[in-house]
Protein backbone atom coordinates (compact mmCIF):
# COMPACT_ATOMS: atom_id res chain seq x y z
CA UNK A 1 0.00 0.00 0.00
CA UNK A 2 1.38 3.40 -0.91
CA UNK A 3 1.58 6.14 1.65
CA UNK A 4 -1.48 8.38 1.68
CA UNK A 5 -1.08 12.00 0.57
CA UNK A 6 -1.92 13.31 4.02
CA UNK A 7 -1.83 11.35 7.23
CA UNK A 8 -2.85 13.04 10.45
CA UNK A 9 -2.05 10.95 13.52
CA UNK A 10 -3.05 11.67 17.13
CA UNK A 11 -3.22 15.39 16.45
CA UNK A 12 -3.79 17.66 19.43
CA UNK A 13 -4.33 21.43 19.27
CA UNK A 14 -4.33 23.68 22.31
CA UNK A 15 -5.33 27.28 22.88
CA UNK A 16 -3.91 29.30 25.71
CA UNK A 17 -6.82 31.45 26.85
CA UNK A 18 -7.37 33.72 29.84
CA UNK A 19 -9.50 31.01 31.47
CA UNK A 20 -6.90 28.32 30.97
CA UNK A 21 -5.54 25.98 28.33
CA UNK A 22 -8.23 24.63 26.02
CA UNK A 23 -7.69 21.47 24.04
CA UNK A 24 -9.70 22.19 20.91
CA UNK A 25 -8.62 19.05 19.05
CA UNK A 26 -7.61 15.83 20.76
CA UNK A 27 -6.29 12.48 19.48
CA UNK A 28 -7.49 13.15 15.96
CA UNK A 29 -6.37 10.74 13.24
CA UNK A 30 -7.36 10.47 9.60
CA UNK A 31 -5.81 10.01 6.18
CA UNK A 32 -6.50 11.46 2.77
CA UNK A 33 -5.36 9.64 -0.37
CA UNK A 34 -4.38 11.47 -3.53
CA UNK A 35 -7.40 12.56 -5.56
CA UNK A 36 -10.04 11.67 -2.98
CA UNK A 37 -12.40 13.88 -0.99
CA UNK A 38 -12.65 13.76 2.77
CA UNK A 39 -15.64 15.50 4.30
CA UNK A 40 -15.24 16.66 7.89
CA UNK A 41 -18.58 17.28 9.54
CA UNK A 42 -19.60 18.44 12.97
CA UNK A 43 -21.30 21.34 14.68
CA UNK A 44 -19.78 24.76 15.39
CA UNK A 45 -16.85 24.60 17.75
CA UNK A 46 -16.16 20.88 17.30
CA UNK A 47 -12.67 21.60 15.95
CA UNK A 48 -13.17 21.22 12.19
CA UNK A 49 -11.75 24.60 11.26
CA UNK A 50 -9.02 24.36 13.87
CA UNK A 51 -7.94 21.07 12.28
CA UNK A 52 -7.71 22.80 8.90
CA UNK A 53 -5.73 25.69 10.33
CA UNK A 54 -3.43 23.25 12.13
CA UNK A 55 -2.63 21.46 8.86
CA UNK A 56 -1.82 24.83 7.28
CA UNK A 57 0.00 25.89 10.44
CA UNK A 58 -2.15 29.01 10.48
CA UNK A 59 -3.47 28.68 14.03
CA UNK A 60 -4.10 32.10 15.59
CA UNK A 61 -0.88 33.29 17.16
CA UNK A 62 0.28 33.35 19.88
CA UNK A 63 -2.64 31.50 21.55
CA UNK A 64 -2.93 28.41 19.34
CA UNK A 65 -0.37 25.65 19.05
CA UNK A 66 -0.07 22.05 17.94
CA UNK A 67 0.26 19.93 21.06
CA UNK A 68 1.25 16.47 19.99
CA UNK A 69 0.69 14.24 17.00
CA UNK A 70 1.94 14.40 13.46
CA UNK A 71 0.72 15.74 10.13
CA UNK A 72 2.55 13.82 7.42
CA UNK A 73 2.16 15.36 3.98
CA UNK A 74 4.20 14.13 0.99
CA UNK A 75 6.87 12.70 3.24
CA UNK A 76 7.23 15.64 5.61
CA UNK A 77 5.78 16.24 9.06
CA UNK A 78 4.07 19.61 8.78
CA UNK A 79 3.69 19.79 12.54
CA UNK A 80 7.44 20.10 12.94
CA UNK A 81 8.43 21.96 9.79
CA UNK A 82 10.25 25.28 10.16
CA UNK A 83 8.18 28.30 9.16
CA UNK A 84 10.25 29.06 6.06
CA UNK A 85 9.69 25.50 4.72
CA UNK A 86 6.01 25.73 5.53
CA UNK A 87 5.70 28.94 3.51
CA UNK A 88 6.92 27.00 0.46
CA UNK A 89 4.12 24.46 0.93
CA UNK A 90 1.26 26.85 1.66
CA UNK A 91 -0.31 28.09 -1.51
CA UNK A 92 1.95 25.90 -3.65
CA UNK A 93 1.15 22.34 -2.58
CA UNK A 94 -1.77 22.94 -0.23
CA UNK A 95 -4.38 25.52 -1.19
CA UNK A 96 -7.01 26.80 1.14
CA UNK A 97 -10.46 28.30 0.57
CA UNK A 98 -12.07 30.10 3.48
CA UNK A 99 -15.67 30.47 4.54
CA UNK A 100 -16.17 34.18 4.12
CA UNK A 101 -15.52 35.37 0.55
CA UNK A 102 -16.55 38.93 1.50
CA UNK A 103 -13.55 39.39 3.76
CA UNK A 104 -11.07 36.86 2.41
CA UNK A 105 -9.86 39.23 -0.32
CA UNK A 106 -7.81 42.34 0.33
CA UNK A 107 -10.10 45.33 -0.36
CA UNK A 108 -7.31 47.67 -1.47
CA UNK A 109 -5.68 45.37 -4.05
CA UNK A 110 -6.98 44.39 -7.45
CA UNK A 111 -8.13 40.83 -8.13
CA UNK A 112 -5.27 40.42 -10.60
CA UNK A 113 -2.55 41.49 -8.17
CA UNK A 114 -3.86 39.07 -5.55
CA UNK A 115 -4.03 36.24 -8.07
CA UNK A 116 -0.54 36.52 -9.52
CA UNK A 117 1.02 36.97 -6.09
CA UNK A 118 1.31 33.27 -5.31
CA UNK A 119 2.44 32.45 -8.86
CA UNK A 120 5.31 34.93 -8.62
CA UNK A 121 6.15 33.56 -5.20
CA UNK A 122 6.09 29.83 -5.94
CA UNK A 123 6.96 29.57 -9.64
CA UNK A 124 9.56 31.04 -11.97
CA UNK A 125 6.94 32.69 -14.17
CA UNK A 126 7.51 36.26 -15.38
CA UNK A 127 4.85 38.85 -14.59
CA UNK A 128 3.32 38.70 -18.10
CA UNK A 129 3.14 34.90 -18.02
CA UNK A 130 1.64 35.00 -14.53
CA UNK A 131 -1.00 37.46 -15.70
CA UNK A 132 -1.85 35.15 -18.60
CA UNK A 133 -2.12 32.17 -16.23
CA UNK A 134 -4.32 34.19 -13.87
CA UNK A 135 -6.69 35.16 -16.69
CA UNK A 136 -6.89 31.50 -17.76
CA UNK A 137 -7.62 30.49 -14.19
CA UNK A 138 -10.39 33.08 -13.80
CA UNK A 139 -11.90 31.85 -17.04
CA UNK A 140 -11.61 28.32 -15.70
CA UNK A 141 -13.57 29.03 -12.53
CA UNK A 142 -16.33 30.52 -14.65
CA UNK A 143 -15.76 34.24 -14.39
CA UNK A 144 -16.91 36.08 -17.53
CA UNK A 145 -14.58 38.62 -19.18
CA UNK A 146 -11.67 37.64 -16.92
CA UNK A 147 -9.25 40.16 -18.43
CA UNK A 148 -11.47 43.02 -17.23
CA UNK A 149 -12.01 41.44 -13.80
CA UNK A 150 -8.24 41.31 -13.28
CA UNK A 151 -8.16 45.09 -12.87
CA UNK A 152 -11.16 45.28 -10.56
CA UNK A 153 -11.32 45.45 -6.80
CA UNK A 154 -13.11 42.83 -4.65
CA UNK A 155 -15.97 45.18 -3.76
CA UNK A 156 -16.89 45.35 -7.45
CA UNK A 157 -17.67 41.60 -7.48
CA UNK A 158 -20.66 39.72 -6.07
CA UNK A 159 -20.29 37.13 -3.31
CA UNK A 160 -20.34 34.14 -5.67
CA UNK A 161 -17.79 35.82 -7.94
CA UNK A 162 -15.53 36.53 -5.01
CA UNK A 163 -15.65 32.92 -3.86
CA UNK A 164 -14.72 31.90 -7.41
CA UNK A 165 -11.77 34.28 -7.22
CA UNK A 166 -10.77 32.80 -3.86
CA UNK A 167 -10.93 29.30 -5.37
CA UNK A 168 -8.92 30.44 -8.39
CA UNK A 169 -6.33 31.88 -5.99
CA UNK A 170 -6.10 28.65 -4.00
CA UNK A 171 -5.76 26.51 -7.11
CA UNK A 172 -3.56 28.69 -9.31
CA UNK A 173 -0.37 26.87 -8.34
CA UNK A 174 -2.05 23.49 -8.87
CA UNK A 175 -1.77 22.17 -5.30
CA UNK A 176 -2.12 18.45 -4.60
CA UNK A 177 -4.41 19.17 -1.63
CA UNK A 178 -7.19 21.70 -1.32
CA UNK A 179 -8.66 22.48 2.08
CA UNK A 180 -12.07 24.10 1.76
CA UNK A 181 -13.39 25.39 5.08
CA UNK A 182 -17.14 25.87 4.71
CA UNK A 183 -16.67 27.22 1.18
CA UNK A 184 -20.38 27.64 0.52
CA UNK A 185 -21.85 28.52 3.91
CA UNK A 186 -21.93 32.26 3.23
CA UNK A 187 -23.44 31.91 -0.24
CA UNK A 188 -26.94 31.66 -1.71
CA UNK A 189 -28.29 28.13 -2.14
CA UNK A 190 -28.15 28.34 -5.94
CA UNK A 191 -24.58 29.61 -5.87
CA UNK A 192 -23.65 26.89 -3.33
CA UNK A 193 -24.42 24.13 -5.79
CA UNK A 194 -22.43 25.88 -8.53
CA UNK A 195 -19.39 26.30 -6.30
CA UNK A 196 -19.47 22.66 -5.18
CA UNK A 197 -19.79 21.55 -8.80
CA UNK A 198 -16.85 23.76 -9.66
CA UNK A 199 -14.64 22.32 -6.91
CA UNK A 200 -15.58 18.80 -8.00
CA UNK A 201 -14.85 19.47 -11.66
CA UNK A 202 -11.50 21.10 -10.90
CA UNK A 203 -10.62 18.25 -8.57
CA UNK A 204 -11.20 15.65 -11.26
CA UNK A 205 -9.29 17.67 -13.80
CA UNK A 206 -6.28 18.41 -11.62
CA UNK A 207 -6.36 15.15 -9.67
CA UNK A 208 -6.00 16.85 -6.34
CA UNK A 209 -7.32 15.71 -2.99
CA UNK A 210 -9.90 17.80 -1.15
CA UNK A 211 -10.70 18.19 2.51
CA UNK A 212 -14.16 19.68 2.68
CA UNK A 213 -15.19 21.07 6.02
CA UNK A 214 -18.89 21.68 6.53
CA UNK A 215 -21.76 21.28 8.93
CA UNK A 216 -24.07 20.45 6.04
CA UNK A 217 -24.60 16.69 5.69
CA UNK A 218 -26.20 17.24 2.29
CA UNK A 219 -22.97 18.76 0.98
CA UNK A 220 -21.02 15.80 2.38
CA UNK A 221 -23.30 13.21 0.78
CA UNK A 222 -23.02 15.09 -2.50
CA UNK A 223 -19.23 15.41 -2.67
CA UNK A 224 -17.27 13.16 -0.34
CA UNK A 225 -15.64 9.74 -0.71
CA UNK A 226 -14.87 9.47 2.99
CA UNK A 227 -16.42 11.20 5.98
CA UNK A 228 -15.12 12.12 9.42
CA UNK A 229 -17.67 13.07 12.07
CA UNK A 230 -16.20 15.21 14.83
CA UNK A 231 -17.66 15.98 18.22
CA UNK A 232 -16.17 18.30 20.85
CA UNK A 233 -12.65 18.06 19.44
CA UNK A 234 -12.57 14.31 18.91
CA UNK A 235 -13.38 11.92 16.11
CA UNK A 236 -16.73 10.27 16.77
CA UNK A 237 -16.95 8.14 13.67
CA UNK A 238 -15.29 7.89 10.29
CA UNK A 239 -15.69 5.79 7.22
CA UNK A 240 -16.73 5.86 3.60
CA UNK A 241 -19.70 7.96 2.69
CA UNK A 242 -21.76 4.74 2.53
CA UNK A 243 -20.59 3.61 5.97
CA UNK A 244 -21.67 6.89 7.49
CA UNK A 245 -24.96 7.44 5.73
CA UNK A 246 -26.23 3.86 5.41
CA UNK A 247 -24.74 2.25 8.47
CA UNK A 248 -24.06 4.92 11.12
CA UNK A 249 -23.00 3.39 14.42
CA UNK A 250 -22.16 6.29 16.71
CA UNK A 251 -25.24 7.64 18.51
CA UNK A 252 -24.11 11.17 17.55
CA UNK A 253 -23.90 10.35 13.85
CA UNK A 254 -27.31 8.74 14.08
CA UNK A 255 -28.67 11.83 15.81
CA UNK A 256 -27.20 14.08 13.13
CA UNK A 257 -28.76 12.06 10.34
CA UNK A 258 -32.11 11.86 12.13
CA UNK A 259 -32.23 15.63 12.50
CA UNK A 260 -32.15 16.28 8.76
CA UNK A 261 -35.60 17.63 7.79
CA UNK A 262 -37.34 15.22 5.46
CA UNK A 263 -39.83 15.87 2.73
CA UNK A 264 -41.63 12.54 3.17
CA UNK A 265 -42.70 13.33 6.73
CA UNK A 266 -46.04 14.89 7.60
CA UNK A 267 -45.73 18.64 7.38
CA UNK A 268 -46.54 19.42 11.02
CA UNK A 269 -44.13 17.00 12.70
CA UNK A 270 -41.45 18.67 14.79
CA UNK A 271 -37.87 18.31 13.61
CA UNK A 272 -35.85 15.73 15.48
CA UNK A 273 -33.10 17.27 17.61
CA UNK A 274 -30.31 15.97 19.81
CA UNK A 275 -31.21 16.92 23.38
CA UNK A 276 -28.73 18.85 25.50
CA UNK A 277 -25.66 20.97 24.84
CA UNK A 278 -22.12 20.36 23.65
CA UNK A 279 -19.84 20.34 26.73
CA UNK A 280 -17.66 23.45 27.08
CA UNK A 281 -14.06 22.81 26.09
CA UNK A 282 -12.92 24.35 29.38
CA UNK A 283 -14.48 21.66 31.51
CA UNK A 284 -14.76 18.50 29.49
CA UNK A 285 -16.27 15.41 31.06
CA UNK A 286 -13.91 12.68 32.18
CA UNK A 287 -15.59 10.02 30.12
CA UNK A 288 -17.12 10.14 26.67
CA UNK A 289 -17.77 13.71 25.53
CA UNK A 290 -21.19 12.81 24.14
CA UNK A 291 -22.27 11.02 27.32
CA UNK A 292 -24.63 13.73 28.64
CA UNK A 293 -26.67 13.73 25.41
CA UNK A 294 -26.46 10.09 24.49
CA UNK A 295 -29.46 7.76 24.37
CA UNK A 296 -27.29 4.63 24.53
CA UNK A 297 -25.09 5.61 27.45
CA UNK A 298 -23.89 3.04 30.00
CA UNK A 299 -22.31 3.40 33.42
CA UNK A 300 -18.71 3.35 32.17
CA UNK A 301 -19.35 6.11 29.60
CA UNK A 302 -19.27 8.69 32.40
CA UNK A 303 -15.92 7.55 33.74
CA UNK A 304 -13.97 6.25 30.77
CA UNK A 305 -13.41 7.76 27.35
CA UNK A 306 -13.90 5.31 24.49
CA UNK A 307 -11.01 4.74 22.08
CA UNK A 308 -11.66 4.73 18.36
CA UNK A 309 -11.95 1.19 17.02
CA UNK A 310 -12.11 -0.25 13.54
CA UNK A 311 -15.31 -2.15 12.88
CA UNK A 312 -15.06 -2.60 9.12
CA UNK A 313 -12.39 -1.95 6.52
CA UNK A 314 -12.53 1.83 6.75
CA UNK A 315 -15.30 2.22 9.27
CA UNK A 316 -14.17 3.40 12.71
CA UNK A 317 -16.27 4.28 15.74
CA UNK A 318 -15.44 5.73 19.10
CA UNK A 319 -18.17 4.30 21.31
CA UNK A 320 -18.54 1.62 24.03
CA UNK A 321 -22.05 0.78 22.96
CA UNK A 322 -22.36 1.44 19.23
CA UNK A 323 -25.60 0.72 17.46
CA UNK A 324 -25.63 -2.50 15.50
CA UNK A 325 -28.60 -1.73 13.32
CA UNK A 326 -29.14 1.57 11.58
CA UNK A 327 -32.20 3.27 13.05
CA UNK A 328 -35.14 3.15 10.73
CA UNK A 329 -35.22 6.87 10.00
CA UNK A 330 -31.55 7.47 9.48
CA UNK A 331 -30.93 5.35 6.44
CA UNK A 332 -30.95 7.41 3.34
CA UNK A 333 -33.23 6.60 0.39
CA UNK A 334 -35.31 3.98 2.20
Amino acid at each position, binding site marked *: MTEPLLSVQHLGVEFDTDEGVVRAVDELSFTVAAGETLGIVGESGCGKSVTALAIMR*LLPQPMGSIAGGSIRFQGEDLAKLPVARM*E*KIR*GARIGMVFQEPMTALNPVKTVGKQLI*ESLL*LHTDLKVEQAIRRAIEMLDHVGIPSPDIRMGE*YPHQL*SGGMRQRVVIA*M*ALICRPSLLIADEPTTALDVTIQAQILELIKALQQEMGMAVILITHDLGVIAETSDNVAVMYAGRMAESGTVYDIFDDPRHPYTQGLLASIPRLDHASKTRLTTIEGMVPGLLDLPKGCRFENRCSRRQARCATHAPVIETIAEKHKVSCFNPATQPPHDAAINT
Partner: protein
Amino acid sequence: MLRFAAGRLLQAIPVLLVVITATFLLVHSAPGGPFSAEKAVPAEVIKALEAQYQLDQPLWKQYVSYLGDIVNGNFGPSFKYPGRSVNELIAAGLPITAELGLYAMLIAVLIGISAGVFASLRPNTLQDYVPMSAAMLGICMPSFLLGPLLVLIFGIYLEWLPVSGWGDIPGDKILPSITLGAAYAAYIARLSRGQMLEVLSQDYIRTARAKGLPEPLIVVKHALRGGLIPVVAFLGPAFAGLLGGSFVVETIFQIPGLGRFYVQAAFNRDYTMILGMTIFFASLIILFNLLSDMLAIWLNPKLRHGSGAAKP
Protein backbone atom coordinates in the same frame (compact mmCIF):
# COMPACT_ATOMS: atom_id res chain seq x y z
CA MET B 1 -13.37 63.89 -6.67
CA LEU B 2 -13.53 67.42 -8.15
CA ARG B 3 -17.14 67.79 -7.08
CA PHE B 4 -16.20 66.63 -3.61
CA ALA B 5 -13.45 69.26 -3.43
CA ALA B 6 -15.69 72.03 -4.77
CA GLY B 7 -18.42 71.12 -2.30
CA ARG B 8 -16.02 71.21 0.60
CA LEU B 9 -14.62 74.58 -0.49
CA LEU B 10 -18.14 76.01 -0.64
CA GLN B 11 -18.81 74.71 2.85
CA ALA B 12 -15.69 76.53 4.00
CA ILE B 13 -17.23 79.96 3.29
CA PRO B 14 -19.79 79.96 6.14
CA VAL B 15 -17.20 78.42 8.46
CA LEU B 16 -14.77 81.24 7.74
CA LEU B 17 -17.51 83.84 8.15
CA VAL B 18 -18.29 82.54 11.64
CA VAL B 19 -14.59 82.55 12.50
CA ILE B 20 -14.17 86.12 11.29
CA THR B 21 -17.24 87.41 13.11
CA ALA B 22 -16.46 85.68 16.39
CA THR B 23 -12.83 86.80 16.36
CA PHE B 24 -13.79 90.34 15.39
CA LEU B 25 -16.23 90.64 18.30
CA LEU B 26 -13.82 89.02 20.73
CA VAL B 27 -10.84 91.24 19.99
CA HIS B 28 -12.97 94.35 20.11
CA SER B 29 -14.55 93.38 23.41
CA ALA B 30 -11.20 92.66 25.07
CA PRO B 31 -10.21 95.41 27.53
CA GLY B 32 -7.71 97.98 26.32
CA GLY B 33 -6.91 98.82 22.74
CA PRO B 34 -3.94 98.93 20.41
CA PHE B 35 -2.94 102.38 21.58
CA SER B 36 -3.35 102.03 25.30
CA ALA B 37 0.11 102.16 26.80
CA GLU B 38 1.65 102.33 30.21
CA LYS B 39 2.88 105.86 29.84
CA ALA B 40 0.24 108.54 29.47
CA VAL B 41 -0.34 109.53 25.89
CA PRO B 42 -2.23 112.76 25.25
CA ALA B 43 -5.86 112.16 24.42
CA GLU B 44 -5.59 114.05 21.14
CA VAL B 45 -2.82 111.77 19.92
CA ILE B 46 -4.91 108.66 20.62
CA LYS B 47 -7.91 110.29 18.93
CA ALA B 48 -5.83 111.07 15.88
CA LEU B 49 -4.48 107.51 15.74
CA GLU B 50 -7.95 106.00 16.13
CA ALA B 51 -9.22 108.22 13.36
CA GLN B 52 -6.34 107.15 11.15
CA TYR B 53 -7.24 103.47 11.58
CA GLN B 54 -11.01 104.16 11.51
CA LEU B 55 -11.42 102.93 15.10
CA ASP B 56 -13.68 105.89 15.86
CA GLN B 57 -16.36 104.54 13.57
CA PRO B 58 -19.29 102.46 14.93
CA LEU B 59 -18.40 98.77 15.29
CA TRP B 60 -20.72 97.55 12.54
CA LYS B 61 -19.17 99.97 10.07
CA GLN B 62 -15.69 98.73 10.93
CA TYR B 63 -16.92 95.16 10.49
CA VAL B 64 -18.43 95.80 7.09
CA SER B 65 -15.40 97.64 5.77
CA TYR B 66 -13.13 94.90 7.15
CA LEU B 67 -15.14 92.20 5.36
CA GLY B 68 -14.85 94.23 2.16
CA ASP B 69 -11.07 94.35 2.57
CA ILE B 70 -10.83 90.59 3.19
CA VAL B 71 -12.78 89.77 0.05
CA ASN B 72 -10.08 91.67 -1.81
CA GLY B 73 -7.41 89.66 0.02
CA ASN B 74 -6.29 92.66 2.07
CA PHE B 75 -5.88 92.06 5.80
CA GLY B 76 -5.28 95.76 6.44
CA PRO B 77 -2.38 97.59 8.07
CA SER B 78 -0.79 96.38 11.28
CA PHE B 79 -1.51 98.69 14.21
CA LYS B 80 1.77 97.99 15.95
CA TYR B 81 4.21 97.82 13.08
CA PRO B 82 3.52 101.16 11.46
CA GLY B 83 3.76 101.21 7.72
CA ARG B 84 3.63 97.42 7.32
CA SER B 85 0.57 95.51 6.28
CA VAL B 86 -0.60 92.25 7.87
CA ASN B 87 -0.14 90.57 4.49
CA GLU B 88 3.54 91.55 4.47
CA LEU B 89 4.09 90.31 8.02
CA ILE B 90 2.45 86.95 7.29
CA ALA B 91 4.47 86.59 4.11
CA ALA B 92 7.65 87.28 6.08
CA GLY B 93 6.95 84.79 8.85
CA LEU B 94 5.31 82.01 6.84
CA PRO B 95 8.40 80.48 5.18
CA ILE B 96 10.09 80.01 8.55
CA THR B 97 7.03 78.51 10.24
CA ALA B 98 6.31 76.34 7.21
CA GLU B 99 9.86 75.00 7.22
CA LEU B 100 9.66 74.25 10.93
CA GLY B 101 6.29 72.60 10.44
CA LEU B 102 7.59 70.50 7.57
CA TYR B 103 10.55 69.16 9.55
CA ALA B 104 8.33 68.46 12.53
CA MET B 105 5.89 66.66 10.25
CA LEU B 106 8.65 64.53 8.73
CA ILE B 107 9.80 63.55 12.20
CA ALA B 108 6.24 62.81 13.29
CA VAL B 109 5.47 60.67 10.23
CA LEU B 110 8.75 58.75 10.03
CA ILE B 111 9.10 58.02 13.74
CA GLY B 112 5.38 57.68 14.38
CA ILE B 113 4.60 55.20 11.62
CA SER B 114 7.69 53.05 12.09
CA ALA B 115 7.21 52.89 15.86
CA GLY B 116 3.52 52.08 15.47
CA VAL B 117 4.06 49.36 12.86
CA PHE B 118 6.98 47.93 14.82
CA ALA B 119 4.88 47.73 17.99
CA SER B 120 1.92 46.14 16.19
CA LEU B 121 3.97 43.19 14.95
CA ARG B 122 4.31 41.70 18.42
CA PRO B 123 1.40 43.02 20.47
CA ASN B 124 1.60 42.82 24.26
CA THR B 125 5.30 42.08 24.33
CA LEU B 126 8.29 44.27 25.15
CA GLN B 127 8.45 45.26 21.46
CA ASP B 128 4.99 46.75 21.92
CA TYR B 129 5.23 48.14 25.45
CA VAL B 130 8.46 50.13 25.06
CA PRO B 131 7.50 52.29 22.04
CA MET B 132 3.92 52.66 23.28
CA SER B 133 5.01 53.83 26.72
CA ALA B 134 7.32 56.32 25.06
CA ALA B 135 4.40 57.45 22.90
CA MET B 136 2.17 57.87 25.95
CA LEU B 137 4.88 60.04 27.50
CA GLY B 138 5.18 62.01 24.28
CA ILE B 139 1.45 62.71 24.20
CA CYS B 140 1.37 63.78 27.83
CA MET B 141 4.43 66.01 27.66
CA PRO B 142 3.58 69.58 26.59
CA SER B 143 6.01 71.28 24.24
CA PHE B 144 6.77 74.05 26.75
CA LEU B 145 8.19 71.33 29.00
CA LEU B 146 9.82 69.14 26.35
CA GLY B 147 11.52 72.12 24.64
CA PRO B 148 13.40 73.45 27.67
CA LEU B 149 14.19 69.87 28.72
CA LEU B 150 15.81 69.13 25.35
CA VAL B 151 17.67 72.45 25.49
CA LEU B 152 18.91 71.58 28.95
CA ILE B 153 20.15 68.13 27.95
CA PHE B 154 21.44 68.59 24.41
CA GLY B 155 22.19 72.32 24.49
CA ILE B 156 23.59 72.97 27.94
CA TYR B 157 24.83 69.69 29.50
CA LEU B 158 26.00 67.85 26.40
CA GLU B 159 26.61 70.98 24.31
CA TRP B 160 25.78 69.05 21.13
CA LEU B 161 23.24 71.47 19.68
CA PRO B 162 22.54 75.22 19.81
CA VAL B 163 19.95 76.29 22.34
CA SER B 164 18.03 78.73 20.14
CA GLY B 165 17.81 80.49 16.80
CA TRP B 166 16.81 79.46 13.31
CA GLY B 167 19.24 79.10 10.43
CA ASP B 168 22.07 81.00 12.13
CA ILE B 169 24.19 78.13 13.44
CA PRO B 170 24.23 74.66 11.84
CA GLY B 171 22.02 72.27 13.76
CA ASP B 172 19.86 74.90 15.37
CA LYS B 173 16.80 73.62 13.52
CA ILE B 174 16.97 70.16 15.10
CA LEU B 175 15.70 70.78 18.63
CA PRO B 176 12.72 72.96 17.66
CA SER B 177 11.66 70.44 15.02
CA ILE B 178 11.81 67.58 17.52
CA THR B 179 9.99 69.60 20.16
CA LEU B 180 7.20 70.45 17.78
CA GLY B 181 6.95 67.01 16.16
CA ALA B 182 7.23 64.80 19.26
CA ALA B 183 3.60 64.88 20.35
CA TYR B 184 2.42 64.24 16.80
CA ALA B 185 4.90 61.38 16.39
CA ALA B 186 3.51 59.87 19.57
CA TYR B 187 -0.07 60.27 18.40
CA ILE B 188 0.67 58.82 14.96
CA ALA B 189 2.50 55.89 16.58
CA ARG B 190 -0.53 55.00 18.66
CA LEU B 191 -2.89 55.50 15.74
CA SER B 192 -0.89 53.36 13.33
CA ARG B 193 -0.37 50.61 15.91
CA GLY B 194 -4.10 50.38 16.48
CA GLN B 195 -4.89 50.39 12.78
CA MET B 196 -2.21 47.81 11.97
CA LEU B 197 -3.50 45.48 14.69
CA GLU B 198 -6.97 45.86 13.27
CA VAL B 199 -5.85 45.11 9.72
CA LEU B 200 -3.54 42.23 10.73
CA SER B 201 -6.49 40.43 12.31
CA GLN B 202 -8.51 40.61 9.09
CA ASP B 203 -9.44 37.52 7.11
CA TYR B 204 -7.54 38.67 4.04
CA ILE B 205 -4.29 38.64 5.99
CA ARG B 206 -4.97 34.97 6.76
CA THR B 207 -5.64 34.45 3.05
CA ALA B 208 -2.26 36.01 2.27
CA ARG B 209 -0.60 33.70 4.80
CA ALA B 210 -2.40 30.73 3.24
CA LYS B 211 -0.76 31.68 -0.07
CA GLY B 212 2.60 31.19 1.56
CA LEU B 213 3.62 34.83 1.70
CA PRO B 214 6.38 35.44 4.25
CA GLU B 215 5.41 37.70 7.14
CA PRO B 216 7.44 40.79 6.12
CA LEU B 217 5.83 40.73 2.65
CA ILE B 218 2.39 40.41 4.24
CA VAL B 219 3.00 43.52 6.32
CA VAL B 220 4.38 45.56 3.42
CA LYS B 221 2.08 44.40 0.62
CA HIS B 222 -1.19 43.63 2.39
CA ALA B 223 -1.39 45.40 5.73
CA LEU B 224 0.38 48.72 5.38
CA ARG B 225 -1.91 50.39 2.87
CA GLY B 226 -5.15 49.58 4.62
CA GLY B 227 -3.61 50.31 7.98
CA LEU B 228 -2.29 53.71 7.02
CA ILE B 229 -5.42 55.20 5.43
CA PRO B 230 -6.64 56.64 8.76
CA VAL B 231 -3.13 57.91 9.48
CA VAL B 232 -3.14 59.76 6.16
CA ALA B 233 -6.51 61.26 7.00
CA PHE B 234 -5.01 62.51 10.24
CA LEU B 235 -2.04 64.19 8.53
CA GLY B 236 -4.05 67.18 7.30
CA PRO B 237 -5.36 68.27 10.68
CA ALA B 238 -1.95 67.41 12.13
CA PHE B 239 -0.09 69.72 9.75
CA ALA B 240 -2.50 72.56 10.37
CA GLY B 241 -2.11 71.90 14.08
CA LEU B 242 1.66 71.96 13.76
CA LEU B 243 1.58 75.36 12.07
CA GLY B 244 -0.83 76.74 14.61
CA GLY B 245 0.86 75.11 17.55
CA SER B 246 4.28 76.36 16.57
CA PHE B 247 3.94 79.59 18.56
CA VAL B 248 5.06 77.94 21.81
CA VAL B 249 8.09 76.41 20.14
CA GLU B 250 8.91 79.61 18.28
CA THR B 251 8.78 81.54 21.53
CA ILE B 252 10.99 79.01 23.36
CA PHE B 253 13.63 78.92 20.63
CA GLN B 254 13.41 82.60 19.57
CA ILE B 255 12.35 81.76 16.03
CA PRO B 256 11.02 84.71 14.01
CA GLY B 257 8.07 82.77 12.54
CA LEU B 258 4.36 83.38 12.36
CA GLY B 259 3.63 82.01 15.79
CA ARG B 260 5.60 84.71 17.53
CA PHE B 261 3.79 87.44 15.60
CA TYR B 262 0.54 85.86 16.69
CA VAL B 263 1.39 85.91 20.37
CA GLN B 264 2.71 89.45 20.22
CA ALA B 265 -0.36 90.58 18.31
CA ALA B 266 -2.59 89.24 21.07
CA PHE B 267 -0.58 91.04 23.76
CA ASN B 268 -0.58 94.26 21.77
CA ARG B 269 -4.28 94.22 20.87
CA ASP B 270 -3.14 94.50 17.29
CA TYR B 271 -6.68 93.96 16.00
CA THR B 272 -5.94 93.52 12.31
CA MET B 273 -2.94 91.30 12.99
CA ILE B 274 -4.94 88.94 15.26
CA LEU B 275 -7.79 88.78 12.79
CA GLY B 276 -5.55 88.28 9.81
CA MET B 277 -3.58 85.48 11.46
CA THR B 278 -6.74 83.75 12.69
CA ILE B 279 -8.31 83.81 9.25
CA PHE B 280 -5.06 82.61 7.70
CA PHE B 281 -4.75 79.65 10.08
CA ALA B 282 -8.43 78.78 9.76
CA SER B 283 -8.08 78.67 5.98
CA LEU B 284 -4.97 76.49 6.28
CA ILE B 285 -6.77 74.03 8.54
CA ILE B 286 -9.69 73.79 6.12
CA LEU B 287 -7.36 73.36 3.16
CA PHE B 288 -5.17 70.68 4.76
CA ASN B 289 -8.17 68.75 6.02
CA LEU B 290 -9.50 68.72 2.49
CA LEU B 291 -6.18 67.61 1.00
CA SER B 292 -5.68 64.72 3.41
CA ASP B 293 -9.28 63.58 3.01
CA MET B 294 -8.80 63.55 -0.75
CA LEU B 295 -5.62 61.53 -0.36
CA ALA B 296 -7.35 59.03 1.94
CA ILE B 297 -10.17 58.65 -0.58
CA TRP B 298 -7.72 58.11 -3.38
CA LEU B 299 -5.99 55.36 -1.37
CA ASN B 300 -9.28 53.54 -0.77
CA PRO B 301 -10.57 51.97 -4.00
CA LYS B 302 -14.04 51.53 -2.55
CA LEU B 303 -14.44 55.28 -2.14
CA ARG B 304 -12.42 56.17 -5.23
CA HIS B 305 -14.90 54.45 -7.52
CA GLY B 306 -17.92 56.06 -5.93
CA SER B 307 -20.42 53.93 -4.06
CA GLY B 308 -19.30 50.86 -6.04
CA ALA B 309 -22.32 48.57 -6.01
CA ALA B 310 -21.53 44.89 -6.53
CA LYS B 311 -22.13 43.67 -10.03
CA PRO B 312 -23.84 40.34 -10.53
